[in-house]
């Protein structure tokens, strides 16, 4: 058991939040998102005028996507202690969570392609912008899967001292429910359900970070508990005796 690596992975959650806000908000200035109701010309001019900082900001934000993976793994490893050796829910969470980097990276490449050649037609640039925003905001399917699986795992924990506090399970399920509306952004170019809307964007932004920070907190607590269970000596490496708690 290696508490330090696990903690490092868990802290990637808050780290990705910092990277995201620097790259996506401060530099690319994509918060608030540009409106889908803009004309093709307006959208294209945004990329022609601000293409440099958009590309720079997104290059940085890509790393927020990468940082998702160690965080997902830290969560999955502690979840695995709930189920033991055969841990379908923990592994499902990992399987879904490792898609997160691509869910940042691919839409960002569409944005960057939109900025890449100023001479492209307005419609082409608008389409690339759409290709970026619709999934970046609306692709909630794997994330909801994670939320649900985490919630079920935590709430079905039968240990006398549960690995995670029960409120975290409820919180995860609640967040999953609230992430449903952005999936509807493909039907709207304006209003609260469009990719920049009060419900599709702003609620999602808030809920995602509540989920991220809430789970980071309980994962760090769980790592502390896990470490105590082992005793200080176990940090030196495998002692050769895998108890039931080892799994």
């Amino acid at each position, binding site marked *: 058991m290696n508490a330090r690596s696990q903690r490092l992975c868990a802290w990637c959650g808050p780290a990705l939040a910092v990277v995201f806000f620097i790259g996506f908000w401060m530099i690319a200035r994509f918060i608030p998102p540009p409106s889908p109701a803009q004309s093709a010309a307006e959208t294209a001019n945004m990329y022609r005028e601000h293409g440099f900082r958009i590309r720079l900001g997104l290059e940085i934000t890509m790393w927020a996507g990468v940082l998702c993976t160690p965080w997902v793994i830290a969560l999955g490893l502690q979840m695995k202690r709930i189920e033991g050796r055969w841990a379908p829910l923990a592994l499902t969470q990992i399987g879904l969570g490792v898609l997160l980097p691509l869910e940042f990276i691919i839409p960002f490449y569409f944005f960057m392609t939109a900025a890449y050649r100023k001479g492209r037609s307005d419609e082409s640039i608008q389409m690339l912008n759409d290709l970026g925003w619709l999934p970046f905001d609306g692709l909630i399917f794997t994330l909801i899967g994670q939320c649900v699986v985490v919630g079920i795992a935590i709430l079905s924990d039968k240990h006398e001292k549960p690995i995670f506090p*029960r409120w975290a399970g*409820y*919180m995860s399920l609640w967040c999953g429910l609230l992430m449903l*509306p952005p999936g*509807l952004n493909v*039907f709207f170019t304006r*209003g609260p*359900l469009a990719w920049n809307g009060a419900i599709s964007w702003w*609620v999602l932004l808030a809920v995602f970070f509540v989920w991220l920070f809430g789970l980071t907190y309980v994962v760090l607590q769980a790592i502390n508990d896990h470490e105590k269970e082992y005793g200080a000596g176990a940090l030196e490496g495998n002692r050769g005796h895998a108890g039931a708690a080892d799994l």
Partner: protein
Amino acid sequence: MTGLATPSALSGNRPPRVPGEPGMWLFILGDLLVFAYVFAVFLVYRADHAEIFASSQRNLSVGVGVIYTLLLLTSSMFIVGAMSLMRVGDRERAPRYVLMAMACGMAFAVIKVFEYSGKVHAGITLNTNDFYLFYFFLTGMHLAHVLLGLAILTAMWFLARRAGTPSMGNKMRYAEGFACFWHMVDQLWLIIFPLLYLLH
């Protein structure tokens, strides 16, 4: 055990206890918070587009809205009954009450599907105008909660069948939590119904 005063609701000797679990209340209150936010957004849009909202609202059937309301209130009443029965360990009747609550919930869902398909066949969708956006979205999110609630009531049915037996353990608080969730679903409808169907 001797020497301890018998606690009663009036004497205040009982330690304060949250019905259900604290975590469930996080879910419920969080949900209410977000719905309150959506209601506020609805009212802002409504203020800006009063005419469209008023004329579209006339296409909604208040009668159907009343039926939904009665169904959910009845189902909540059955859940209250089920909880009392579970507390005295009546594992014959408690599950039946839960089933009747579920039947009301399922009837709600079925009628809702007919209401939606009627609208869609008349060419009315989420995209038709802002009123219908909120109509479909609010009732849709609520329906999602009803369906989740039916799953939760299923879990409650299994618990009800164990009421009064040792295997029940201290799981009454789960039943309380499930009941609270269902009451929340009912409560949400009691706000959505007047907002969408009645408020002129």
